[in-house]
């Protein structure tokens, strides 16, 4: 690697300094000045400054996102599912599938022999296959 020699660059420094003195010095150009200032004023005028647009846009995006999340949650909540008319009410007795087979006559006889509690339990079980679980007959006490 060669050792830097500052003197070697001196002629080039002199040439650059000489050239810098020869840079033209034109007169003030009013037309250029006023057209430039007009362009700057146009940019400054009615438009919203650029630094305001960024937070404005961010806020709009955040609000839209929150609104869509809230709407989605409302739509997917179970209460709304029941209230939606387009969806069938699965609690209606006509749609409840008879998953539990009803007791036979022998089962009723056996339950009656065991006592009232067993008989009522069997009746309740069979009734649930015909009526919804939310039917008042299951919640209101017997007279």
């Amino acid at each position, binding site marked *: 690697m060669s050792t*830097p020699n500052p003197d*070697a*660059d001196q*002629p*080039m*420094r002199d*040439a*650059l*300094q000489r*050239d*810098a*003195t*020869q*840079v*033209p*010095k*034109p*007169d*003030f*150009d009013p037309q*250029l*000045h006023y*057209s*430039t*200032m007009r*362009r*700057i*004023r146009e*940019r*400054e005028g009615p438009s919203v400054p650029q630094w305001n647009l960024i937070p404005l846009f961010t806020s709009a995006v955040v609000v839209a996102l929150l609104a869509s999340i809230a709407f989605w949650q409302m739509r997917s909540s179970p209460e709304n599912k029941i209230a939606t008319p387009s969806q069938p009410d699965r609690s209606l007795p006509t749609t409840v599938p008879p998953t539990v087979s009803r007791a036979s006559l022998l089962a009723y006889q056996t339950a009656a022999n065991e006592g009232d509690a067993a008989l009522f339990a069997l009746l309740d079980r069979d009734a649930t296959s015909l009526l919804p679980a939310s039917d008042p007959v299951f919640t209101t006490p017997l007279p």
Partner: protein
Amino acid sequence: MSATPSEQHADLIALARGGDLEAFSRLMEELQAQLMGQALAFCGDHQRAQDLVQETMIAAWKSLPRFDGSCRFFTWLYVILLRQHRRALGWFSRRLPLATLEQQASANRAEAATTSEAPNPEAAEAELLRAMLAALPARHREVVRLRFYAEAGEAEIATALGISTGTVKSRLHHALTKLRRMKEKMNHLRGGAH
């Protein structure tokens, strides 16, 4: 080139930084001729130089709140001018090979010889120097221009460009070495051509 009396403009700069467009306009009235002279030296074409000055003024107004007074206002403005010029050149800002530079210089000399009675060797040398400057990498060219054409000190250049003083010294040294070698090669090419 005389130094810009930026200290005299301190009040105008302060007002302009606060958003006073009239103060900025008065400031630019003072500095436009200097900017235009430098732009003409870069472009060599009046129309392109005017466009460059206009874009520089607009960019300066937009960036003015970021000017912290750590360097002269003209130096700061000159950096914007340099960068606008580089951006305007785009793909054409790539360096040209020396042979192309010599061809251009020869063509210019031939053109000058047909239009004027006596060729001006000083003008030809100045043209060659500017062509060599244009052939430097942008990071070297801007340091040379700031040092010699904007008369900025090394520390001031460092502040204006956001680099260390050591980097400025290093870039300046490399730039001058490259220019010297280019000059030697150009002389060699000229010698071979004659």
